[in-house]
């Protein structure tokens, strides 16, 4: 069943359009992450679902009911804020009970719910403390507890982990995943700019565009499962945003196509085979070749499916190394190679490229479809 439906939703602040053409379905029990660079409107979209921000246009439905004009408290949503937004003058217990008291929930019921939530989150000993006596992680738990006690249909998270230090962030991330398991019927909508968080948590990622172009700013770039976005980016924006370091983009020219793939020639003169269906395009069409740094490896012998460059710089991290390779443009080509590399300036190097892991984009920036030969395979644990 669908939990949240957005139809043609838009948001304007005065003359400035921050969100446009948002069409989205979030299923009951689904963990949906709004991802995007700062300024893409992802928090605004979340706040519109919460009812804190008004919707400028379009329809917003929760559990089938039109919610555009419904007060936040009556939308059966609960929200966890980035800075926790705990009431500083109330105890942990009162913070969690406050919303229920406003809803005139009977006292025993409030007590039962608060204590149950405290137990789930292991914050029972803290119930009498004030927020300022708590650590960041504890405040985060209280903020989540305040959401849990309301038994909401939708949990909304606005960058909930960004104020925590790195170690705690990983820990809380698994707790949020557990929370999702404990409330299977509730939908989760989670805003973050951190793609690792998005990849780790999401059933579905909604990637929003930012950038100077008014026409597309604040619109959905792609919706899909995390690995779908990673392996099958629909356009240059998604391809460039997901993955770190970013995908390399090389200008290329189509020299031939058949049912299994296409051949493209790079500016450097090399011709590469890619498992992309370019059947409809004429030879000589200008394209962009996308190559993820982690999808290149050292070539052996006279590999024809390889690109040859000189090394500009090397960064060794122990587990893997970044090679910065000279390219005709100013942007260096980056390759991520496992193991250590010797840093020899100007050393020539050849890197093998797997046809299945190449991406082609047309001049509008849209990805050409991959051929069946390129279906990604996940390793199985059996």
């Amino acid at each position, binding site marked *: 069943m669908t939990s949240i439906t957005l139809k043609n939703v838009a948001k304007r602040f005065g003359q400035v359009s921050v969100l446009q053409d948002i069409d989205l379905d979030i299923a*009951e029990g689904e963990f949906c992450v709004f991802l995007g660079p700062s300024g893409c409107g992802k928090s605004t979209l979340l706040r519109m679902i919460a009812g804190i921000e008004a919707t400028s246009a379009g329809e917003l439905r929760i*559990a089938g009911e039109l919610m555009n004009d*419904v007060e936040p408290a009556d939308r059966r949503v609960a929200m966890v804020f980035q800075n926790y937004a705990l009431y500083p003058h109330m105890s942990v217990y009162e913070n969690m009970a406050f919303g229920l008291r406003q809803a005139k929930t009977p006292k025993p019921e409030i007590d039962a719910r608060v204590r149950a939530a405290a137990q789930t989150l292991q914050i029972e000993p803290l119930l009498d403390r004030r927020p300022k006596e708590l650590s960041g992680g504890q405040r985060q738990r209280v903020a989540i507890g305040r959401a849990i006690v309301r*038994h*909401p249909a939708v949990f909304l998270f606005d960058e909930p982990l960004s104020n925590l230090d790195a170690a705690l962030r990983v820990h809380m991330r698994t707790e949020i995943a557990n929370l999702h398991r404990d409330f299977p*019927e*509730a939908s989760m909508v989670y805003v973050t700019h951190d793609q690792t968080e998005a990849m780790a948590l999401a059933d579905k990622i909604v990637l929003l565009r930012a950038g100077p172009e008014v026409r597309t700013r604040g619109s959905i770039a792609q919706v899909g499962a995390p690995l779908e976005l990673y392996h099958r980016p629909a356009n240059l924006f998604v391809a460039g945003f997901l993955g770190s370091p970013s995908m390399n983009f090389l200008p290329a020219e189509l020299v031939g196509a058949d049912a299994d793939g296409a051949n493209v020639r790079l500016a450097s003169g090399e011709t590469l085979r890619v498992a992309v269906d370019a059947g409809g395009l004429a030879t000589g069409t200008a394209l962009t070749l996308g190559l993820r740094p982690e999808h290149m490896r050292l070539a052996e012998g006279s590999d024809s499916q390889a690109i040859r460059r000189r090394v500009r710089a090397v960064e060794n991290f122990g587990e893997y190394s970044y090679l910065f390779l000279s390219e005709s443009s100013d942007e260096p080509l980056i390759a991520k190679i496992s193991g250590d590399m010797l840093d020899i300036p100007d050393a020539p190097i050849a890197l093998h490229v797997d046809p299945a892991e190449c991406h082609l984009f047309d001049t509008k920036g849209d990805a050409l479809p991959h051929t069946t030969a390129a279906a990604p395979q996940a390793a199985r644990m059996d």
Partner: protein
Amino acid sequence: MSVGEAVTAAEKLRRSRAGSRRLHKAAPTIFLAPAILLLMVFLLYPLLSSFRLSLLDWNGLGDGARFIGLQNWVRLAHDTVFWNSAWNNILLAFFSVVVQLPIAVVLAVVLDEASKGSRLLKILYFLPLLMSSVALGVLFKNVYDPNFGPINGILGAMGLYSWTQDWLGDPNFALGSVIAVVCWQNIPFYMVLFLAALSSFPREITEAARLDGATGRTIFWRLKLPHLQGTFRTAVLLAVIGSMRYFDLIYVMTGGGPENASEVMATYMYRTVFNSFELGYGSTVASAMFLIIMVIAAVSLRISKRFETEV
């Protein structure tokens, strides 16, 4: 755990849409109404009413009020006592700025430097601000008393009989004596103001300057004093505007006398209304005072803004 609550969603929807929405719309009005009402009754209306009263010839009792147009204003234009008192206000403003602020800066520096005991000093220095102007006025009336006051007493004991004066009773000394007390009372205020600004001076800058070989004196003159500039502007504004409306202390000490020597606009206005029972003309004085203060406030704000952009 169920998603649905006891109250159906549809019912909640209806409830949240109708009544509370209208009430929320009215919230700004409801929150602001008491304040606006009070300000209209006790500030705005009296202000306007003062101008209306300035057109009357009225002793304030009964219905003997007579509309006389601008006659009061014409009289005011030729009233040397009024212009003299306005001039006294300006003198007061001038000396407030010239005397109070430099002393306050020096004291703030003293407190800022003297780490030991500066807390106690600050507490004691602040005392004059806590006293009511009436108590202060009565106090200094006794200090200045020509026969029993300590000033003449000490001068006499030092053999300086020729220096003893009737400080408040002599038209040549009254205004000066009063201004001295005004300064004494207000210096602590500006001192704390400057002290706050000084203590907000970033320690890293002092340290960086010391590494650059700057001496304590250089740091003070070249770094800390310029840092006080903004506070200084605020202080000048406060001192000038405050001086234009000064009343309590002067009224208590001299009542504006002798022979209007220490008269300021507010004491003159008060005496015209409540001693001479010229309510109409008193209101003219009050209205003129209001206009003068507004002009001076506007001009000094403008000047202070200009300084801000220049520096």
